[in-house]
């Protein structure tokens, strides 16, 4: 039963990874940008929520303030930095977002110091409450809540992409920017919206990180790696795949940790590489272009 519990915990952890990763996935899928600052931006969001909570706001109310603000920041980031760097070539955004990450991390360090912070004290009993399913399986209410939010968020994004005109424009831009523009899509606006969604969801993930555990100015990189792993396992650009990828990652980490605490991180990485390897083998060694088919984007 201990294993069942680990799997349950892993699935719930996967929900958090999905929230963290969906913005990354969207940005990569639509703009082809590998945003190295995504984790740092999540931590920035967490710090904003933390500061507001310290001033007496409930973290949930704080989120209602911070999320739209980060969305605006995302739009500005796209207009001010990403758009320009993207014009210079596919690798330049890597440098730009890396620079942004370093600036963010160190400004946060300058302002808040190296202490680990947590939102745990501000969410009342939610941090402790849990449902006991059986003697071995205990589901923390907070973790379940995060998982539910993840499903709702991804469902909402899915509906947005599938049903709304803007969502359709976004998918068209992801497929082929130039052609989309030919038929009247304003790709600048689309990119701005994608970046806004990415930063809002990153801030939400940051808040969840703060409630689940703790964060410091330099926590972003580790979180970023998890997010990337979830995105790649699930298939680049696929939203539900991101949730699946997050769950696979969360379960492997928890099962690995049950074997040996040192294996929490390693197990996740190994499973990630195993998934990639299987995919390569499945499409047949040497079959050119096969990988791309296996990873066919659905946005």
């Amino acid at each position: 039963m201990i294993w069942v519990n680990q799997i349950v915990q892993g699935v719930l952890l996967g929900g958090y990874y999905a929230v963290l990763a969906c913005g990354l996935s969207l940005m990569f899928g639509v703009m082809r940008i590998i945003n190295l600052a995504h984790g740092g931006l999540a931590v920035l969001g967490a710090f904003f929520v933390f500061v507001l909570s310290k001033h007496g706001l409930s973290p949930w109310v704080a989120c209602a303030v911070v999320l739209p603000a980060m969305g605006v920041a995302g739009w500005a980031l796209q207009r001010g930095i990403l758009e320009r760097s993207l014009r210079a070539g596919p690798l330049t955004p890597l440098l730009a977002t890396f620079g942004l990450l370093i600036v963010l991390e160190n400004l946060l360090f300058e302002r808040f110091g190296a202490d680990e912070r947590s939102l745990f004290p501000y969410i009342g009993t939610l941090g402790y409450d849990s449902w006991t399913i059986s003697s071995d399986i205990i589901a923390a209410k907070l973790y379940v809540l995060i998982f539910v939010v993840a499903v709702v968020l991804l469902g909402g994004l899915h509906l947005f992409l599938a049903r709304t005109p803007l969502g359709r424009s976004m998918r068209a831009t992801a497929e082929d920017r130039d052609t989309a523009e030919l038929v009247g899509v304003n790709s600048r606006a689309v990119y701005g919206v994608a970046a806004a969604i990415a930063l809002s969801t990153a801030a939400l993930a940051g808040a969840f990180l703060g409630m689940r555990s703790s964060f410091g100015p330099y926590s972003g990189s580790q979180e970023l790696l998890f997010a990337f792993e979830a995105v790649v396992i699930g298939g680049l650009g696929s939203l539900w795949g991101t949730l699946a990828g997050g769950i696979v990652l969360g379960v492997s980490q928890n099962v690995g940790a049950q074997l040996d605490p040192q294996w929490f991180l390693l197990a996740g990485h190994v499973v990630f590489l195993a998934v990639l390897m299987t995919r390569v083998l499945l499409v047949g060694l040497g079959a050119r272009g096969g990988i791309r088919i296996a990873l066919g984007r659905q946005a």
Partner: protein
Amino acid sequence: MNQRNAISVGRWTRLSAISTGCALALVVALAFVPVALSANTTDRLTTLFIYVILAAMWNALAGYAGLASVGQQAFFGLGAYATIRLAQQGVNVYAALVLGALLAGAVAVPMSMLMLRLRGGEFAIGMWVVAEVCFGLVILDKSVGGLTGTSLIALNKYNADDQRAYNYWMALGAAVVLLVLLFVLLRSRTGASLQAIRDDEEAAASVGVRVLAGKGVIFVLAGVGCAMAGSLWLATSITFQPKSYFGVEWTAYMIFMALAGGLGTFEGPIIGAIVFFVIQEQFGDSGVWYLVGLGAAAVGFALLLPQGLWGAVEGRFGIQLFPVGYRLRGLDSTATRAPSETYAES
């Protein structure tokens, strides 16, 4: 007819012949630094050479083979780790630096079989994960002290001055050998095919370029180079702390140097390494604000000078100091080809 006769395709120009000659003279002169200049200068130049290696290797991957890796710290760390383990087995410590780098580079061979089948973003992130796996495995090894790390004690049998000079010569030698290897490789058929792969993999494959083999060569070379940089870094800092060797910031520095200098140019990364080195020398003491400034500089380069310092010079004046590509001679200056364009040998 007359005009056609006047046109020829060539590599060397007078400028590039002179500059290559100057570079050789400079290397010879640099070899005398440990005996001629202060200990401090020697140490600093050793650091600079390590940066040059790192920048040139990342540029070789991303600028010439289109392989943007976020995981080159894997080799940096493995090079240092292999050196420690070899030295513990009683291998002479300076031999261990080279052997360790070669061993760590050898890991790149099996790794390339999987990783090079990944494209773009997947390759970039996949390499980062590979680096984390290497880190995770190295800290499981009790003989290097797990997370706490250990030191390269074997260096103690050399006195401080000898250590400094040997480290310097090793770093200079490694930088020169790796740059020359890269230069020769890029001028060969492989170099031309690599750039074809970078520009369009499918098209290159369709005209008969062996994509995986071409990428593999550069991937292994970059692996050896980054591992050598790691083992040299170990020789200069003596302590081996896995977390700092396998840190993703190493790759971030490489990206900065290669892009600030000029990606896809031979000279660019060397200039980028010098820029990075100077920034660090000037502002390294200001702690957090130095890092904020470095980040801001990275953003600045991405926005204002995306082709990098050397890329801008090359684009404007059409200069190539170390000719990797070909150029068309005999046309009037307005029709001069951009020198970075390379044409495959027939």
